């Protein structure tokens, strides 16, 4: 997360008359910021003016809604493993960011969110566009600051980036009153920051790794669970080496996909509510569960009474508070996942002595109970479409999703063979995330294929960002898996509310092709397998943005599934 390069801040035209905003811009340059996602307004006018005057080569991405800005910054942060930067005005600008801040907090994404605030002389008077953003964001930030004096700006910005991107990453808000950014600033605190209360553990305790090594030797049914911590810690290569050396099967959380190659023979698929039968049974039956960088979220564990009851549980997490929070842990290891994996590689001499039968059992399950779906001759299913996108791109793409059925199908049928290519809203489950996140990914990785797989519902929550594609000609491929329904809601109503489809069937929607056209974006509607198969290759390699309105069968459900409240061994819809 740290870069070696140092940049000498460029002086603004009248360096002697620097404003607080100029100081802020310099501090951002010092942090090697390249891209800012934002939206202007009254309280940040001085900052926008400083950006305008600055000679720094910032790219400012003007999204068309602050929510779009922050989700784009999240996508950027996820694939670049670097803090995303967001700028918005006070009051409504700031409150429009709240969903994204909460999302980044849940999924541990590093963000530095800079908001304007009303001037200090009217703070607390319910002034125009005043919202108590410290109060609002305290529970959903890793940390937040309100700048009291421009003197503190350089130190606070250094601290904010450090806090956001080290330890367990997360969002940090810096709220800056308008007078502080507008007024001249004569003196600044350039001292290195001092955070006496913040010392995230990075390296594991070697004794704990030794214990883990001993447990591994004895294990007859070992299993590794990967979470996003492996990605944050850059541990994928070490993980693969270890796994292959000791033949340990691997399952993953939703957010951990890509930490270990999805097409590897030792990979069992995702676990949890819509995980594979093999993975869920492996968790249920294993005698050693090594959780690397996952937080045992309830969508993974199902009913805790039935979760990994036969296992010695080892949990590697950079956040000590996650260890033992949901699942009793026998071998706690507080560490960055990458550092822990390296220590394992260094220490562990031999793997499980007797786990051949276990591997055979899992391979049998994988063959006998794979993911499956019906493929009727008429029409097209979303699962089939995801598979075809995967094939058409050879899996070589960054995929973002929204939240709903399409998200689960993308997780199930797109196999991620490399880290940092899967961007989805897991913890908060934020509809409207996928498309703007794809914009951030494309800006972070201009050379990569970026595909936003979204539902017709979620896409309509943030589709105004089509403007950004148009303006910058970003070659994002949007695939709307259009079932004319809030599919996941419809599925739950079918399964658990006796098919009372309350407000979930939405046949009234825009003509998405015309919509794309109005933004000068190529739009294509596809209704049959034949057309999809014929066109998908060309569409995916088209040199520019594309929107595909893929009409899919509405009645499909995501299976297999752990019904709410049940143990993960208790799945419905497993391949008969």
């Amino acid at each position: 997360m740290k870069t070696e390069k140092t940049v000498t801040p460029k002086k603004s035209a009248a360096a002697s008359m620097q404003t607080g905003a100029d100081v802020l811009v310099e501090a951002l340059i010092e942090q090697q910021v390249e891209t800012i996602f934002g939206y202007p307004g009254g309280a940040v006018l001085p900052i926008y003016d400083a950006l305008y005057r600055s000679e720094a080569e910032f790219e400012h991405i003007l999204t068309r809604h602050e929510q779009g800005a922050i989700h784009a910054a999240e996508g950027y942060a996820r694939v670049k493993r670097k803090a995303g930067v967001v700028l918005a005005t006070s009051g409504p600008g700031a409150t429009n960011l709240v969903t994204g801040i909460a999302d980044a907090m849940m999924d541990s994404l590093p963000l530095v969110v800079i908001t304007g605030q009303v001037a200090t002389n009217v703070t607390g008077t319910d002034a125009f566009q005043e919202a108590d953003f410290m109060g609002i964001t305290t529970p959903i930030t890793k940390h937040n600051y309100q700048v009291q004096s421009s003197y503190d700006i350089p130190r606070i910005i250094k601290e904010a980036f450090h806090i956001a991107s080290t330890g367990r990453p997360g969002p940090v808000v810096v709220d800056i009153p308008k007078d502080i950014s507008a007024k001249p600033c004569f003196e600044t605190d350039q001292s290195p920051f001092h955070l006496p209360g913040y010392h995230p553990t990075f390296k594991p305790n070697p004794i704990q790794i030794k214990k883990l090594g001993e447990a591994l030797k004895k294990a007859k049914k070992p299993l590794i669970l990967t979470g996003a911590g492996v990605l944050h810690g850059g541990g994928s290569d070490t993980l693969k080496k270890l796994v292959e050396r000791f033949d340990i099967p691997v399952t993953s959380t939703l957010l951990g996909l890509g930490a270990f190659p999805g097409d590897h023979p030792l990979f069992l698929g995702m676990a949890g509510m819509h995980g594979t039968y093999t993975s869920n049974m492996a968790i249920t039956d294993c005698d050693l569960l090594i959780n690397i960088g996952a937080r045992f979220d309830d969508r993974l564990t199902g009913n805790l009474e039935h979760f990994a009851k036969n296992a010695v549980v080892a949990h590697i997490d950079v956040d000590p508070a996650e260890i033992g929070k949901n699942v009793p842990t026998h071998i706690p290891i507080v560490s960055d996942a990458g550092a822990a994996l390296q220590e394992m590689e260094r220490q562990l001499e031999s793997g499980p002595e007797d786990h051949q039968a276990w591997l055979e059992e899992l391979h049998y399950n994988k063959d006998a109970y794979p993911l499956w779906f019906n493929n009727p001759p008429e029409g097209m299913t979303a699962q089939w479409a995801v598979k075809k996108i995967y094939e058409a791109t050879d899996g070589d793409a960054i995929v973002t999703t929204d939240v709903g059925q399409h998200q689960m199908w993308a997780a199930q049928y797109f196999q991620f063979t490399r880290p940092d290519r899967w961007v989805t809203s897991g913890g908060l489950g934020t509809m409207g995330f996928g498309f703007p996140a794809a914009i951030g990914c494309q800006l972070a990785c201009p050379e990569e294929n970026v595909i936003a797989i979204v539902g017709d519902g979620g896409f309509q929550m943030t589709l105004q960002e089509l403007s950004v594609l148009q303006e910058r000609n970003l070659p994002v491929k949007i695939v709307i898996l259009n079932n004319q329904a809030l599919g996941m809601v419809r599925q739950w109503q079918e399964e658990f509310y006796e098919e009372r489809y309350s407000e979930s069937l939405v046949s009234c929607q825009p003509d998405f092709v015309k919509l794309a056209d109005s933004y000068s974006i190529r739009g294509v509607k596809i209704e049959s397998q034949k057309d999809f198969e014929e066109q998908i290759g060309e569409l995916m390699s088209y040199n520019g943005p594309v929107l595909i309105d893929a009409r899919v069968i509405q009645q499909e459900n995501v299976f297999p599934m752990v019904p709410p409240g049940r143990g993960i061994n208790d799945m419905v819809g497993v391949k008969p």
Partner: protein
Amino acid sequence: MKRIITLVVQNRSGVLNRVTGLMHKRQFNIESISVGRTEQEGISKMTFVVDVEDHRKLEQLTKQLNKQIDVLKVTDLSEKAIVARELALIKIVSNAGVRNEVQGIIEPFRASVIDVSKDSLSVQVTGKPEKIEALINLLRPYGIKDTARTGLTAFSRGSQPQSAELTQYSLLK
């Protein structure tokens, strides 16, 4: 179970909000809070008495508190030998006639009269919460006009006895 938890914090704006918000979010019941400066500039100390369901929840609480950037140190004093005190001010209805009587009641508590007016009398008392409770109960028949309590503040004793002897020192059984 009741626990006494002290936090040493950097005295920055929003830190109390962060700490109490966290307790609220994770559903810990706060019985009392006291906050004050320490001998070190910019450093404050908070003392919380909280009601926690079990040890796992307690561990969550201390870990979550430790995670806060402005929290420097979290100590669970509950299992230690400690000195813990609360201060209370109690204003009762009184006239010249009962003053002596009241004096007699408060004396064993080492409480003192800190304000007297024509029809009221204010008492200051320091001690463990039970002692304060007991004094309030004794004064109740005279008619209590107002009370103000600081909430508990505490720290560990200079020397810690063997764990077997702890219960007799511990404030919260």
